[in-house]
């Protein structure tokens, strides 16, 4: 931890903190728009997992590929996506990345090499591996980073995709965000392994089990795995343990979650943790923190206004664009 902390520059710490906070504030706005009936589709918040999504997402280079899942707004923002594009997509606007055709956070953006998830989460894993292999075949030193939940890690495509990546020594990193609940299902009903990262042994690749609420540890571990993959040494599996501090989606009050566990994890809130560290190390003071929050609030306010003023799609666009011409 100390070594990791020393390796990460103050500027990077501030960047991690800023994007994590922007993620949370954007999600708060998305939930408000959902409660107002303006967002009509599902809303899946990543409160509590920002340390994982932002920590891992920032470890990518601009030309690398990212396959996030439904709770990973932090990874989209870390890869360079704008709050406006996210809101346009949630609001089903004609100017959104999918022109109103796809919901919420399924945002693909070819300009940023982000491939948005399908709802069958594990089914993205072989596709992500395919991008890693495809880019390598074209001579690029590119890495693909893919997220999966501890729930999604139990689907068959997890095995097929990771095994394929291992056999091919694909430049691929799979991050399991183990937030301890798959919708309402606790981990002991999902798998009996000690750690999901232990599965890495079965594929002959490195596996790491780390604290997913510690953005610095996530960043450092994922960065190392990415550079290892880029150098041709093959894929890694990284399990980041965190806690989903909200329901599965905005309609779910999480009544089934162990309240004591929830309380314990509130102390490990990834944003509060990093904020504490930044203050302790004197990287930022209270006014500087307030300035960051203020700038984020202004950006979200402007993005919300623009998104709400943006046109809806035409109804008959529904019939267009099925095939590439």
């Amino acid at each position, binding site marked *: 931890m100390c070594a990791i902390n020393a390796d990460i520059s103050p500027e990077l710490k501030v960047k991690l903190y800023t994007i994590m906070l922007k993620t949370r504030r954007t999600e708060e706005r998305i939930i408000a728009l959902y409660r107002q009936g303006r967002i009509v589709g599902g809303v899946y918040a990543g409160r509590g997992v920002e340390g994982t999504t932002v920590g891992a997402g920032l470890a990518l280079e601009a030309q690398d590929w990212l396959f996030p899942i439904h709770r990973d707004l932090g990874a989209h923002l870390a890869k360079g996506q704008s709050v406006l594009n996210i809101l346009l997509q949630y609001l089903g606007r004609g100017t959104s990345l999918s022109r109103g055709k796809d919901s919420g956070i399924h945002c693909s953006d*070819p300009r940023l090499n982000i491939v948005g998830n*399908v709802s*069958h989460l594990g089914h993205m894993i072989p*596709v992500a591996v395919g*991008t890693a*292999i*495809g*880019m390598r075949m*074209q001579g690029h030193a590119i890495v693909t980073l893919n997220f999966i939940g501890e729930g999604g890690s139990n689907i068959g495509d997890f095995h097929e995709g990771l095994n394929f990546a291992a056999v091919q020594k694909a430049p691929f990193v799979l991050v399991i965000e183990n937030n301890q609940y798959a919708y309402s299902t606790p981990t002991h009903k999902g798998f009996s392994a000690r750690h999901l990262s232990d599965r890495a042994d079965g594929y002959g690749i490195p596996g790491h089990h780390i604290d997913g609420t510690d953005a610095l540890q996530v960043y450092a571990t994922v960065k190392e795995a990415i550079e290892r993959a880029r150098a041709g040494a093959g894929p890694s599996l990284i399990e980041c343990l965190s806690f989903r501090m909200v329901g599965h989606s905005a309609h779910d009050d999480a009544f089934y979650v162990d309240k004591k566990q929830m309380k314990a994890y509130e102390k490990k809130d990834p944003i509060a943790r990093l904020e504490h560290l930044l203050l302790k190390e004197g990287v930022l003071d209270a006014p500087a923190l307030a300035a960051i929050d203020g700038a984020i609030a202004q950006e979200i306010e402007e993005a919300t206004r623009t998104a709400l003023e943006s046109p809806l799609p035409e109804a008959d666009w529904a019939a267009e*664009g099925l095939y590439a011409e």
Partner: protein
Amino acid sequence: MVETTYLQAITDAMREELQRDSRVFLLGEDIGIYGGAFKVTKGLIEEFGEERVMDTPISEAAIIGVAVGAALTGMRPIAEMQFADFITSGFSQLVTNAATLHYRYGTAVPMVVRAPSGGGIHGGAFHSKNPEAWFVHQPGLKVVAPATARDAKGLLKSAVRDDNPVLFFENKFLYRRIKEEIDPAAEILVPLGVANTVRRGDTVAIITYGAMVHASLEAATELAAEGIESEILDLRSLQPLDVDAILQAVARTNRVVIVHEANLTCGMGGEIAALISEHAFELLDAPIKRVAGLDTPTPYAPVMEEYWRPNAEKIAQAAREVARF
């Protein structure tokens, strides 16, 4: 001119496309040194190396998923299913990922999945399937099913150059049973979505594809002796479907038999009959008849398989009934 089997035509198409375009590569089970279960890829690993003729684990979901991912990066993969039956293990990769990406985000998915389909080889329930209708029902995929060596070559080359996911149902009953003279120096490209009238006649139209084109031709010889002249339309492509050619055949004959080896219910025949009913009801002088496989799994014992499968005799009987109505 070289006498070329249906199988050799497929091999030649792949070799020519691999030579023409460095983005083209093959992946599948046992396709390398073994040359594929049916030897369709024989000799290609020696010519193009193991990166472009990629042996894979037994992982249909990963094979198709990796092809989708590679296609997203601009590669043009040709994935082989060892038998079309096994495509079920990768079903979601086709219908969830490959079929929806362009509609949702405008990203092209230029890939081909070759699937050796069809019975008559005593393969039983799991090596005889004709699963094309499942995929025609999924918007966003293209589906072809060649009946001749020339069409197999020309359609595969067109499929490789298409910017969409194309399912190529090659009929394994035809692999070594049919051959024709093909000029190896000629560039053969058969466009997707164009049917071919393989026999002219004015009594009854037999609309069919794949191996059943040959059974229909056999039936037509038998019927001609009885004064019934059959027009045989080989659809070649099921999605896109050449509706104009179907309606023209109906207009010329006013009587229709639709033949496919796939089982009857919710097969292509139902869709074609509905299209004729909607667009050419007043042209019909008799009810449309369908000749198809039984609505059961394909049985193993030859006597039962023959009973299960459409053949010239069953097609001729249906044509007689329609002609005499």
